[in-house]
């Protein structure tokens, strides 16, 4: 709003430049986008084919006959309804937990001053550097000790803490103008209230990004759940999806896998589009007004 009034003088020229730039951007995005969308489109297309259609070489995009029944067949073949519930519980718990712990620690690392802060920070993010392969067995032993094997706790609780997310939150919080915080502090806000009322609303794009990442990663998480979730009733979607597969691929019903993969991906797509809502600029302005 403020911007429009300031640039009125050269409005026509700027508008034409913007239209040209937009057009150029559209073309580039569309051309490059084809490469990005192709495998996904191919997956969806394959979900409507029969097995012969999938093996046609070179690949054919449009199915000759549309096999909608692949979806019902894939759904009933494994207990996908239970899988959806398990995956949703795990993803929701991990996303909320990580948003909370990461933003809290990120604020602490970015804004609060205390001895040893940066050493702890470096130590904490160095946890990202330990290859997970060597942690699999000890973590499994620990889960057995807690009696968490084949329970959802085993795939939720150890993942409520995230060096990666903490690092990200810190990086976004250091760019927030300090004046906002100082104003709140002068108004008598404690550190937690400042974090809750000032910092969190200002980091919405970053929180949305972390939520999207965590959701995608948790939703698709495979290796660890595979090891700890033995019982069928606690299995998450990727495990159910994998259970279609055979050793040599010879009997694998790829058309059903593609159909299942398509409906499994829908919640992720929704999460992504919803997350976009928080990608709005100009919050800082309102923040200053509201806080000041």
């Amino acid at each position, binding site marked *: 709003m403020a911007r429009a009034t300031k640039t009125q003088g050269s409005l026509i020229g700027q508008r034409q430049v913007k239209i040209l730039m937009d057009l150029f951007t559209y073309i580039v995005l569309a051309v490059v986008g084809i490469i990005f969308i192709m495998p996904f489109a191919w997956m969806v297309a394959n979900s409507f084919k029969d097995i012969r259609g999938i093996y046609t*070489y070179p690949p054919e995009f449009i199915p000759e006959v549309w096999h909608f029944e692949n979806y019902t067949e894939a759904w009933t073949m494994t207990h996908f309804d239970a899988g959806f519930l398990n995956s949703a519980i795990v993803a929701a718990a991990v996303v909320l937990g990580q948003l909370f712990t990461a933003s809290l620690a990120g604020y602490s690392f970015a804004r609060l001053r205390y001895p040893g802060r940066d050493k702890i920070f470096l130590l904490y993010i160095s946890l990202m550097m330990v290859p997970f392969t060597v942690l699999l067995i000890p973590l*499994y032993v620990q889960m057995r000790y807690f009696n968490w094997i084949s329970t959802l706790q085993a795939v939720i609780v150890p993942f409520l803490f995230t060096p990666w997310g903490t690092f990200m939150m810190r990086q976004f919080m250091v760019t927030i103008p300090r004046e906002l915080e100082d104003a709140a502090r002068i108004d008598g806000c404690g550190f937690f209230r400042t974090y809750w009322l000032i910092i969190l609303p200002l980091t919405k794009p970053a929180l949305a990004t972390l939520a999207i990442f965590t959701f995608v990663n948790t939703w698709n998480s495979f*290796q660890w759940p595979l090891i700890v979730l033995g019982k069928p009733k606690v299995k998450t979607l990727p495990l159910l999806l*994998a*259970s279609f597969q*055979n050793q*040599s691929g010879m009997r694998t019903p790829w058309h059903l896998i593609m159909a299942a993969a398509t409906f499994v991906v829908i919640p992720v797509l929704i999460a992504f589009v919803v997350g976009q809502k928080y990608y709005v600029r100009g919050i800082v302005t309102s923040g200053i007004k509201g806080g000041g």
Partner: protein
Amino acid sequence: MIRKSVLFLTVLALLSLGFAASAQDMTDWTCGTVDGDMSGAITITGWEGPGEVDKFLLAFDEFFGEYYPNVEQILNTGVSWTDYWTTLPAQLAGGAEIDMAWMHDTRNDTFAANGWALNLDSYLEACPIPGWPEKFVASQVDAFNYQGSQYAIPYDLAPGGLYINLDLFEAAGVEPPGEHTSFEEFTELANALTQDTDGDGDTDIWGISNMVSVGRGAGGAYWVIKSFGGELFNEENTASMMNSPETVAALQWLADLLWDSGAHPTAESVAATGFTTEFLFANGNVAMHYALNDAAARMWELVGDSFNWTVVPTPTGPAGRYNFIGGSAFSIPASAAQPDLSYELIRFTLANPAHLCRTAAMGAALTSQSEFHNCAAPDDAPYADAYHEVFSVIGARDGVHPAYHPKYLEWETSVWVANMDLLWTGEERDAAVVVERAHEQTNALLGG
């Protein structure tokens, strides 16, 4: 009084008769080592998914339904190949209670040597499996034997053979190969079938595919090496025998299919995705496709009626006829909570003829070749007779596999694949050069 005691006695007699009858049932297909009233759970894991595990599931359900109705089956199947071999050791090392694990011949010795798998000798002695071992395929009994003890009981077979497109043979005016075709004749045949149909200078139809593959283990070439009279290791698996002229000749023959005659398309790697190269055959681009028996059902699905095809045996070499054979087995982890019950289940699955015939009808070649087990392969398939002949009869008879010693997997990854891939990618076209390097590295690994 008397009538009462008669009644009592009668009831008692009837009851004991009933008991005897049920005990009789038990001894039919179980040895009765586990109390039928037992309750609890049995955990079974395997990598094979739907279509493949169905063959066990029927037997498992029957077994538990009939003899152990209070036991809950926890089945973990359909895990991809590599994921399985991560998950299983991680779970076992972490102390998981797994009662029965699907085992592969390439891994048996490693699992046995590391103390993962239970030695089954005492079980086999106390409660023998009908027809064991004389009616089982010898190479597979041997594959799951480590230092004289049995660590797993082989169940199904995976012999190699050739899938051939009869229409392309007819078009080229050549006869399909057979059991007695020599390797030279085979190369000639592959060359005759290779064509550039549209004349643009690029091959459109290849004579042979999937004979070699980037990243493939030694099993895929071992039968050729044996046919030429070569060997990989010495008897004790302590030294390399790879630099023999016969081994070099065998590998050179394979490399020549790619680089000399060009009858073989790029050696596609069979990566973890599970999509393999059969699409070239299924689309009519290849006249002969090397694959194991388990490809048959999928080929049938894929080819449909677009061309005529069948299966034939692989060729015969100067040192005789050999083909690859692999297979899977039932093993019991050393940490199993219910090893006795697992053994009973294995025995039931392997011994019940009704079940085995059903399995055979699902397209699996079986290790157990007892007369009543000798059921037909997918009998409604047009290729059923050829399948039976090529895989169950010839394939089982001439089957060979490399010696799977405890260091085999490490050798395969760090020596075999590292050197042979150069031959399959064409970076090196002289087999003698790569073999020399592999020979030295093998000695360093096995001797060290």
